[in-house]
């Protein structure tokens, strides 16, 4: 259109000004090939490991050579370590799966930590009061029920307020984390009269050890839950409804989905899974209760769920990588004598890079150096030919703003051939009037 009018309209001048402001243009990826996100993510993981190795050197100059070997020795060195690694990945995956339905619904639940803690607390309560009085198998089932109910109930509180009064769920669930933590310290002070704040290992309610190894049964349970969640999200009516609510609340209302009902139902499901995680942590791993039993996994799991785009399979891979990073970095830190919290630093650097890579998955960045040249062309030539116009369009592809404008051009060009006759700079009104005339004819 720019070419046929001969003069630049005000709109074009505005677009040019926009383009002049920044040579970097960011546009949403619309038709990226399927392999591209995978390649970007794999590259990001590799970069993340390299950066962590470099950061290690910053703390301990000799550590670079041993970094990768120690990473693998810390995670795959012995059978024990391999099982530990898989258990760590499994529990992260379980909590990530638990928060996923809520996230898919765009319910920003960051209270997974507190929900897991509540599940753990309920399970520990059962063991504390019923341990030895009922049969071991019955106790384990009771613990599971109590955990699920407790955690689901805890999750229900913010869900109800969100559904009824649209209370900000991010802040609400964040606060509930610390209330849950405080609740556990409170219960511990009731149980342990000495004030030491430590509940020792409780002798009841231990999950059976498959093949004589800890955690094997836990990992199998998580694998089962993973399949369950995958089916729930992908094939069930509930899963469909919650993704509709997440995409657009108005659409959901229009097609007759009761939004409060979906919010509450999904959050109960989410809470129940957190309860299972709490139960596994108490009955299958630590056999005790403390405020640090979830150990920040509730937060890490949120990152995992988000970065995997709520896909259970990618979530499993991400959990495994995070567990590998954490365990491996802990080993590196021990060998190189760096310090206790180095694995957290490594994990957060890992996350930073993966989060940043999401940008390149979702958006394309183009650097346009051509617009200054185009500007000159526009000034020198009064009436540019048809060829030049397509040229200009190709160049303007670099920016999203002009992208859409170019599309408009195409539409106009196809539908209104009379456009060519409009010579005034206010051709837009002219187009419309010609078009209208055509329609009436």
């Amino acid at each position, binding site marked *: 259109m720019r070419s046929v009018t001969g003069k630049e309209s005000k709109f074009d001048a505005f677009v040019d000004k926009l383009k002049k402001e920044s040579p970097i243009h960011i*546009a*949403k990826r619309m038709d990226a090939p399927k392999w591209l996100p995978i390649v970007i993510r794999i590259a990001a993981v590799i970069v993340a490991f390299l950066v962590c190795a470099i950061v290690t050197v910053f*703390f301990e100059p000799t550590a670079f050579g041993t970094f990768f070997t120690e990473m693998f020795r810390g995670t795959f060195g012995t059978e024990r370590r391999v099982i530990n690694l898989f258990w760590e990945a499994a529990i992260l995956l379980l909590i990530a799966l638990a928060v996923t339905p809520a996230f898919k619904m765009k319910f*920003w639940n*960051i209270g997974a930590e507190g929900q897991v803690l509540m599940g753990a607390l309920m399970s520990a309560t059962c063991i504390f009061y019923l341990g030895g009085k009922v049969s071991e198998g019955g106790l384990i089932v009771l613990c599971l029920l109590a955990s699920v109910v407790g955690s689901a109930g805890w999750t229900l509180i913010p869900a109800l*307020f969100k559904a009824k*009064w*649209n*209370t*900000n769920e*991010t*802040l*609400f669930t*964040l*606060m*509930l984390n*610390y*209330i849950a933590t*405080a*609740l556990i*310290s*409170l219960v511990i*002070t*009731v149980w342990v009269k000495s*004030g030491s*704040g430590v509940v020792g290992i409780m002798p009841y309610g231990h999950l059976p050890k498959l093949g004589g190894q800890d955690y094997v049964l836990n990992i199998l349970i998580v694998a089962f839950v993973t399949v369950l969640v995958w089916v729930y999200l992908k094939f069930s009516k509930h899963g469909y409804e919650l993704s509709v609510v997440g995409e657009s609340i108005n659409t959901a209302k229009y097609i007759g989905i009761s939004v409060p009902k979906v919010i509450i139902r999904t959050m109960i499901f989410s809470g129940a899974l957190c309860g299972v995680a709490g139960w596994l942590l108490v009955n299958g791993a630590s056999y005790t209760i403390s405020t640090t039993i979830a150990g*920040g996994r509730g*937060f*890490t799991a*949120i*990152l995992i769920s*988000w*970065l995997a785009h709520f896909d259970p399979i990618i979530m499993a891979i991400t959990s495994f990588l995070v567990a590998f990073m954490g365990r491996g970095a802990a080993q590196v830190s021990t060998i190189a004598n*760096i*310090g*206790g*919290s*180095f694995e*957290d*630093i490594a*994990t*957060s*650097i890992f*996350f*930073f890079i993966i*989060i*940043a890579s*999401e*940008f390149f998955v*979702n*958006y394309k960045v183009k650097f346009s150096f051509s617009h200054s040249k185009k500007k000159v062309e526009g000034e020198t030539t009064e009436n540019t030919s048809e060829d030049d116009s397509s040229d200009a369009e190709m160049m303007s592809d670099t920016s*999203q*703003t002009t992208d859409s404008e170019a599309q408009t051009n195409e539409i106009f060009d196809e539908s209104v051939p009379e456009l060519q006759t409009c010579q005034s700079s206010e051709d837009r009104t002219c187009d419309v009037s010609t078009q209208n005339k055509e329609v009436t004819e």
Partner: protein
Amino acid sequence: MFWTFLTSTIKFSTLFLYGSVGETITEKSGHLNLGIPGIMCLGAIGGCYGVRSYIDSLGSLSQMSGFAVVLVGMICAFLFAALGGMIFSFFTVTLRCNQNITGLTITTFGVALNSLMLSKIDKTGFYEAGRLFSKGIVDANTTDGLVKVLFSQSALVYIAIAIAIITAIVIKRTRVGLNLRAVGENPATADAAGISVGKYRYLATLIGSGIAGFGGLFFIMDYLTGNIEYGIDTYGWLAVALVIFTIWKPNWAILGSIIFAALYRAPSYLNIGFTEREVIKMLPYIVTVLVLIITSIFGRKSVQPPAALGTTYFREER
């Protein structure tokens, strides 16, 4: 006894005040920065390294000047914390990442870096520096009554209150504050009105984080007089809670932080058991939740969170 309690409460409240004023500025721009605990830790690291290099540059500890050590500490704390805010803004504005996950990652990073770096730093002279930080106009041990409460506080306490009041005025009364609120309420409209959303969000997050960083410096150098064994993250989350408790008003945060600090300090002044202590520790979070619920049920527009809080703005997205 009461005056001592009040004095120490006001002193302790400063930690929350810095954190919550910083977070309020950030949240007013629509950024829910859950990295505040980590950023306060970064401020503490920066402050400690600043003080360390200042002490190293002197011949002997007796040459240390109170003004200089506080100034160096504050500048370094601000820069380090603002760096954390810079990372946050870069991820959320430039790279359009999700704010919650970026914030949580910064918290993990900051807290871990804090415990690692501060276990490595050389602590000689930190006690003396801490004494200079916590020095008031009058000596707290010899005075009593209102004079003690008002005049025995350290410089960072007064600066915190001044920052809170200035922030409140800027947000409420100035053009910049109006634009900032517009960006936080409805970035698309603000953008259409010619306000640069990205610029406001960047600056608000940088300044807010820097102010929160003073909280970290205050906690280590002033409150603990240079004893760097304790973490800040729990208090950081209380600062986030305080923002909600004071319904996004920095001038109210002065009072709110004193209430939180009083709840936190009360157990050591009252003769009560462990269980009751835990109940009192839980109270700040419970009242915050109650405030959140009550404002959402009855709230007018003025007591709601900024409407665009936690959302990433991308002009071409509809």
